[in-house]
């Protein structure tokens, strides 16, 4: 019997980010920090951001979990480094559309399009989304801080 193929889910790009995670480890002086755990499977992502003038200057992540959760986090840091906060929000929305609604990957997602195959496995979607939910939490903190600054 022929071997099952996993090319659609475990694309080379995903395995590459899993084996050689980019931007792994905490930042020396983060301005934003968030973390998230998936209670069902124990996957864990910590995210540090260095934001100034509305631009993400640097990101660092660490944690533990499956190839999907860790590669998604690695690709997130690579995609958003040096990008404005508003873009981070827009990209998160596009990742969600691809994973949750099964929309074809937006060209702006770049390497993140490799996660497309996860959409077909509902139980693994939460793995891919974990880092993005952590990012949303960090963005929420950034907005709150900005608001306090305006009113304070």
């Amino acid at each position, binding site marked *: 019997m022929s*071997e*099952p193929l*996993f090319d659609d889910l475990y694309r080379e790009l995903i395995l590459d980010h*899993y*084996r050689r995670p980019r931007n792994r480890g905490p930042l020396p002086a983060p301005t934003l920090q968030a973390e998230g755990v998936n209670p069902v499977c124990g996957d*864990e992502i910590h995210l540090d951001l260095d934001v100034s003038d509305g631009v993400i200057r640097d990101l660092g992540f660490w944690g*533990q979990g499956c*190839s999907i959760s860790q590669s998604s986090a690695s690709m997130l840091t690579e995609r958003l480094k040096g990008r404005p906060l508003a873009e981070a929000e827009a990209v998160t929305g596009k990742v969600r559309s691809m994973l949750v609604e099964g929309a074809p990957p937006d060209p702006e997602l770049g390497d993140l399009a490799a996660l497309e195959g996860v959409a077909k496995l509902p139980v693994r979607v939460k793995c891919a989304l974990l880092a993005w939910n952590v990012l949303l939490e960090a963005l929420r903190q950034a907005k709150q801080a900005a608001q306090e600054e305006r009113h304070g």
Partner: protein
Amino acid sequence: MLDIARIRGDFPILGQQVNGRRLVYLDNAATTQKPRQVIEALVRYYETSNANIHRGIHTLANRATEQYEAARGSVARFIGAAGPQEVIFTRNATEAINLVARAWGDASISEGDEIVLTVMEHHSNIVPWQLLAARKGARLRYAGITPDGRLDLDGLRQLIGPRTRLVAVTQMSNVLGTINPVGDIAEMAHAAGALLLVDGAQSVPHLPVDVRGLGADFLAFSAHKMLGPTGVGVLWAREELLAAMPPFLGGGDMIAVVREETSTWADLPHKFEAGTPNIADVIAFGEAIAYLESIGMANVRRHEEELTALALERLGRVPGLQIFGPASAAERGGVVSFAMEAAHPHDVATIADGYGVAIRAGHHCAQLLMRALGVPATSRASFSIYNGEDDLEALIEALEGVNRVFGEGRERAAVR
């Protein structure tokens, strides 16, 4: 030797293909599949006997009541209970343990009392005691495990003291498969004047368990892990304990006389079965017990022990695979947890599924044990009477597939 081909023929679900391959079901510690005899009993009950039990005068009500109580009798016989009055039907093993924590615990536990557990417990044998301890100001103490995944009996002995009111321990770990020496633990508990609750969710389906020799005061287990339907659990306890305990839930069927302010309780076992129970599933559970009895629990155990020995040997040869728990199949049930260097347990389970092999990955509702083992999660294969060597071969093939897909990572992990 079990006639596996004949047994498989009784399980309609096993006849299907998953991802183009024969379904290989190795998630039996989560729930087992159901033989045709059990499925047919459900249909037969609804087609011929459906009525509410215990209060009806008409023919169907009598028939349903007789079948329901006959199933209770089967359970009592199966575990060697003194009689059907010692068998309480609940929703699952979890509810059975919660029943003890509420009905016995609220009446018996005071501030400063101690409840001794083990880090090997399923969350269902931890959280009810945490809730009880919080209500009463009691203290939980946990026995640890040895490096090879056995219960640390010396540590347990030292934890049990004059303040210990209850020891609650699993007879078989749902992660490591470790079979605990319940008899020895019962002696320790009783010598300190404490009671012993045994979580039998994994053991009763796979080992001959006789409460007369077990030494336990309470035993909890679930029907769905032993070929029966979901939605039925059992609490067994010695009659004098049950008689002294206040009710758990209040409502119909559990009362004798109801007045405006107070009521009196029905006799055992009905005192603990408020409201209309899960009649159909209890009756079908009786068929599951009949099925297991027709094979014989000693034969079930022998088959699963042989398969486990084979699994330990073959899995041990898969590169980069580490097995948790005792090395000898004689000391464990048919549950094998493992980690693969190349891939996370969730990736292992996803790839195995691609081969039609159903295994489980995660913390298995045993986060304390995961911490004791120093891993976030494990992959777990668990066996039942319909599993054979061919299932093991399919698992090995899938795990070799894991190493192929994640292969490069294994080499790099070694370098890092």
